[in-house]
């Protein structure tokens, strides 16, 4: 217990922005911390606004009783996904592993404390959802005063179980990968297979629940959340506790969370050193024979460096590759099962056909391929190796051009291919298809440049492990969240406008807008790069 407290205190201090702010004498660093905090606060506010508007929507149509279910499922889903992506690099193969394990800490204490630290780091996200939903619920249901503190406390407990489940899956993946020679590749493949399985599970669950034939889409959505909560017990316990004050549900939620925590880290503790030894060690073949070498331009050599960096890091590979794989899987589903089938599955009977959805094709694909931009994290990812770039006679603009080239080459072909496949499925005209491909590529150009703006402006070089910048970095979050919300809005808007104007004209307008945004972002990157000069200042 004592050792756990000591370690927790150290882990919190070592990641505390306040601690850095307090003790650094670097004014630039202080300004960056303030910028990061403001950026995060804006994101939390956006998430809260999104959740409040959702709860108002539920309240307006008389479904406010379903808000606790929705809140529980949103928090649980977010906790599960965030943890699954962070497990490697946070629980396993983290940078200070040697230092911590050489100290007299039990392996399960180290793993448990790392988990708790991850839980505390994610808490503002969960609470943003929870508080917003609580306000909506409180206003529409005029709940008793005791509901509020109970809601807040249980919202803190609610993410524990999904986080533990995700950690266990991460542990299984790490354990299996540890037995293979190519640990990283096996880990990436297993993670992607699992995520695709989860992705398909959503359709299976929907299919099971669809049997009740409820008529109205919104009522159906509420019915679905209620039904899912029926399957997912922690959400059910949360709902019973805040709706009816069920003491049994409160005890069950708390008890199961604690028992699962102890159980998981007892299991993990047993093979923790073995897994980390395997994940952190790399065999060298020493079979290289000097062969003829190739020369590249500076920009393409930086792009190639990014490629090598990506395949050397499971976190990088999974986060960058997931959007591409999902976009290709989705487009293949469109192609094989037909657009009408997908519309029927996703829209649950809403009055929409393939023709009206076609203007949204580039945005549907971009929702996946534009979900992240590697340029949002690659400036920070230089980390301690930043001296390599900065000590070379390189203009920073060329460095960023190289990073942008890599991102563009990574996402543009997948975007184009996915759009073509969906266009075939939607039987779009050749002209429309060509314009959608151009629009998709223009969107990738924009995301590449805008990601780079975020990446430079919120660059953090003193990170503990690459998850800190790839998954948790302010630049990534500032790029990702608004982008997702805006793209979802654009899907709806393009369908709406497509019903009122020529698809060709609409596509041309959108292409011009996307290219303009890309150009503006590119100019901004060049300005920021100029500020950095050769990187020596």
């Amino acid at each position: 217990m004592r050792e756990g407290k000591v370690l927790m205190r150290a882990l919190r201090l070592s990641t505390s922005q306040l601690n850095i702010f307090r003790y650094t004498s670097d004014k630039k660093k202080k300004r960056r911390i303030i910028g990061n905090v403001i950026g995060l606060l804006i994101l939390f506010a956006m998430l809260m606004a999104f959740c409040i508007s959702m709860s108002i929507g539920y309240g307006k149509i008389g479904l406010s009783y379903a808000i606790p279910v929705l809140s529980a499922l949103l928090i649980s889903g977010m906790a599960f996904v965030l943890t699954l992506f962070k497990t490697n690099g946070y629980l396993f193969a983290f940078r200070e592993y040697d230092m911590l394990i050489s100290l007299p800490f039990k392996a399960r204490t180290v793993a448990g404390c790392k988990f708790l630290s991850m839980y505390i780091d994610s808490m503002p996200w969960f609470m943003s959802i929870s508080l917003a939903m609580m306000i909506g619920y409180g206003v529409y249901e005029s709940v008793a005063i005791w509901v509020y503190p109970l809601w807040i406390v249980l919202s803190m407990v609610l993410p524990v179980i999904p986080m533990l489940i995700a950690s266990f899956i991460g542990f299984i993946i790490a354990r299996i990968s540890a037995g293979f020679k190519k640990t990283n590749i096996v880990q990436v493949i297993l993670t992607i297979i699992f995520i695709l399985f989860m992705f398909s599970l959503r359709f299976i669950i929907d299919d099971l629940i669809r049997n009740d034939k409820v008529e109205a889409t919104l009522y159906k959505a509420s019915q679905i959340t209620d039904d899912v909560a029926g399957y997912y017990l922690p959400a059910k316990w949360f709902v019973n506790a805040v709706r009816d004050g069920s003491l049994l549900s409160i005890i069950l939620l708390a008890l199961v969370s604690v028992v699962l925590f102890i159980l998981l880290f007892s299991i993990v503790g047993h093979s923790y050193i073995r897994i980390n030894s395997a994940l952190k060690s790399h065999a060298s073949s020493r079979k290289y024979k000097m062969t003829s070498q190739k020369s590249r331009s500076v920009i393409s050599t930086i792009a190639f460096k990014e490629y090598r960096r990506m395949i050397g890091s499971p976190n990088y590979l999974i986060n960058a590759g997931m959007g591409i794989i999902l976009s290709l899987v989705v487009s293949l589903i469109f192609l094989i099962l037909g657009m009408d089938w997908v519309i029927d599955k996703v829209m649950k009977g809403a009055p929409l056909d393939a023709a009206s959805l076609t203007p949204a094709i580039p945005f549907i694909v971009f929702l996946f391929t534009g979900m992240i931009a590697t340029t949002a994290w690659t400036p920070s990812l230089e980390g301690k190796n930043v001296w390599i770039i900065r000590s070379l006679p390189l203009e920073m603009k060329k460095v960023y051009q190289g990073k942008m080239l890599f991102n563009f080459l990574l996402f543009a072909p997948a975007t184009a291919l996915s759009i073509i496949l969906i266009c075939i499925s939607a039987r779009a005209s050749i002209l429309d298809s060509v314009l959608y491909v151009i629009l998709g590529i223009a969107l990738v150009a924009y995301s590449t440049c805008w990601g780079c703006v975020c990446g430079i402006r919120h660059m953090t070089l003193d990170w503990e492990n690459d998850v800190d910048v790839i998954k948790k970095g302010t630049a990534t979050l500032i790029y990702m969240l608004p982008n997702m919300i805006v793209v979802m809005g654009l899907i709806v808007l393009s369908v709406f406008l497509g019903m009122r104007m020529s698809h060709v004209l609409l596509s041309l307008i959108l292409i011009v807008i996307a290219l303009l945004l890309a150009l503006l972002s590119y100019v901004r990157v060049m300005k920021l790069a100029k500020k950095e000069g050769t990187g020596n200042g």
Partner: protein
Amino acid sequence: MSEKVILEIKHYSKSYKGDVKAVDDVSLSVQSGDIYGFIGHNGAGKSTTIRAIVGVLDFTEGEILIDGHSVKDEPMECKKVTAYIPDNPDLYENMTGIQYLNFIADVFNIDVKTREARIKKYADLFELTSALGDLISSYSHGMKQKVAIISALIHEPKLLVLDEPFVGLDPKATFKLKEIMHELCSKGTAVFFSTHVLDVAEKLCNKVAIIKQGRIVQTGTMEEITKGHSLEETFLEAEE
């Protein structure tokens, strides 16, 4: 000086993925008061051995005992009496030097008075006291190395394990570290360290082991190994 065995490695082997044996059947014994040098070229298996000793690296073949306890079966007992300084210490960069040292002191449950005295003693010795309030991220490599050394000495270990400890240290700090090693040994601590700096090893160590491609090729007291030659000559001969 007592003759108690502090570190005993028995037939330790470690294979990485691909079945290449990084370390093959290593056996050696370090007694209290020994300054034991572990010498080998890059990739010979020094760090693989050291990381297994301090419990960081899992292994399946052989046995490593520290103060009579098995690293595999009683890791906590071993770690309580061991201190480890890696070649490139990954400290918590966002802590100040003093915060980090307090963390280590808390881990070993060192009372406030003792920790203050020890931190002051070693920080003054390495001329680091004035920088202890700064973030570790602002330190040079040598300063980080000094913090790692102080943190290792804070609980007066029975076994001090160092991986290339002199890399990055300035000449004065190198001299001080050598003095500290002698002082610790006179109190009965065993020091086990890897190095490339052969003349330092020759002057500092009473025992030495030379490792080549994962196998110990020579081991014993300095006199037994060198037989009147320099350690450099002996090492190069062993490498051929």
